[in-house]
């Protein structure tokens, strides 16, 4: 199972998590973990998700969630979990 990490950064507003979760549910991406924090008025969220059941590949999910982010004035990135493990774990 190749997990993905979704990061959301931007100005806090109503319904950010709802929008992202709706997209993921519609595309059968299972959420494994969510953490979020507000730093200096900016909303920071990280989701660990499993796209195994999804019919879309990671690249498409990244593009479409990126568009969702742009509509809401947020930066949303989807990246394979491996890159974070490579960088932060020996």
């Amino acid at each position: 199972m190749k997990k993905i990490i979704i990061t959301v950064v931007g100005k806090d507003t109503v319904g950010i998590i709802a929008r992202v979760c709706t997209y993921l549910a519609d595309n059968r991406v299972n959420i494994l973990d969510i953490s979020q924090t507000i730093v200096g008025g900016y909303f920071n969220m990280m989701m660990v998700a499993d796209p195994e059941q999804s019919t879309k590949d990671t690249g498409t999910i990244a593009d479409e969630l990126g568009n969702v982010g742009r509509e809401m004035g947020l930066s949303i990135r989807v990246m394979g979990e491996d890159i974070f493990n490579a960088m932060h774990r020996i």
Partner: protein
Amino acid sequence: MINILEATETVKMITQENLDVRTITMGISLLDCISSDLRQLNENIYRKITTCAKDLVKVGNEIEKEYGIPIVNKRISVTPIGLIGASACRNSSDFVSIAQTLDRAAKEVGVNFLGGFSAVVSKGMTKAEENLIRAIPYALSSTDFVCASVNVGSTKTGIDMDAIRLLGQIILQTAELTKENDSLGCAKLVVFCNAPDDNPFMAGAFHGVTEGDTVINVGVSGPGVVKTALESVRGESFEVLCETIKKTAFKVTRVGQLVAQEASKRLGVPFGILDLSLAPTPAVGDSVADILCEIGLEYAGAPGTTAALALLNDQVKKGGVMASSYVGGLSGAFIPVSEDQGMINAAEAGALHLEKLEAMTCVCSVGLDMIAIPGDTEASTISGIIADEMAIGMVNAKTTAVRLIPVIGKGVGESVEFGGLLGHAPVMAVNGFSCKEFISRKGRIPAPIHSFKN
């Protein structure tokens, strides 16, 4: 599990600090393409490259999408054509036809540079290699993506001064033939001492004869990441400074290692090496010179520059070596002038001169890189500059290189625009005193003694 701070740090490196994988370079051996029939040879070369590298760009793009890390270039290096064409090529124009085949193959597979129009002549030139060198100006002016390099010396063999004398003229001729584009052809020609067989970076990449049939080599980048990390340790001791560079280099290199392994697996091609070089681009915030300033210099070129660069280069290696299973290529800090906004600023401010750049090349990879000089510089002077740089490489047992651009029709103080990753540069002054008699001597400089290191 990864926590939110770690995730944000990685995302910030990519989105704000220009972290990227600079190149995935597929090395392809052309030894099995050799034929004494030129038409057949060209056909073999085209077929081999377009078969081996047909998925290179696609796989590169897939990895880029999946991991969210930009992979700026997908490139190819091939066995030095001086060897491959030796049997079929009777003259220079035969070699030019091979360059055109390489260009066609590069365009077919969608890579943006192909290196290996090269000759390794560190002790002497064969007739074929001399023909290849004489073909370089025509090869570079009649193709878009082909890069040429000539290795003219090594610590074991000494320096081939006949090749250096010839290359002074070849560089000027290349400049002349591409003068409509600010002599851009010279940006695709590198002269080396101790050239590595597995360098993934252009313009000097070629697939050495010590390599296997095909191989994936990856070059990482990340000057912006190092610079940002150093902003948080201003005024701290050298110990803190060095530890910060090492840790950052480790993280950057691990990303490259991941990409290299994925590319190797998906293409079914063995992973060769990771090149640890800090490679700048003209983009603001992606500069090696800016790191030197962050270490404490007003401009790159100020007193202390060589020491700061030595420290930076060494710490990058120390951090990077543990992060990758195989390290090779050039692995150090690159100090090109036109491709680094901080270097351009330093040159324009009068802080950085050719002689200081030469000193800097003693402690880092690679050499005098992407430096615009006046178009009326004599061929023997260019050869003299090359000889100096090669001597540094030979004596210090390191790779050195020269990529000079005599800009036809322009003089000191004028500016040249190369565009894209190649950037822009002020034309720098060259010492005008003559070395003609030195350069006109025939033969080679003997290999240095390896004892009495003083």
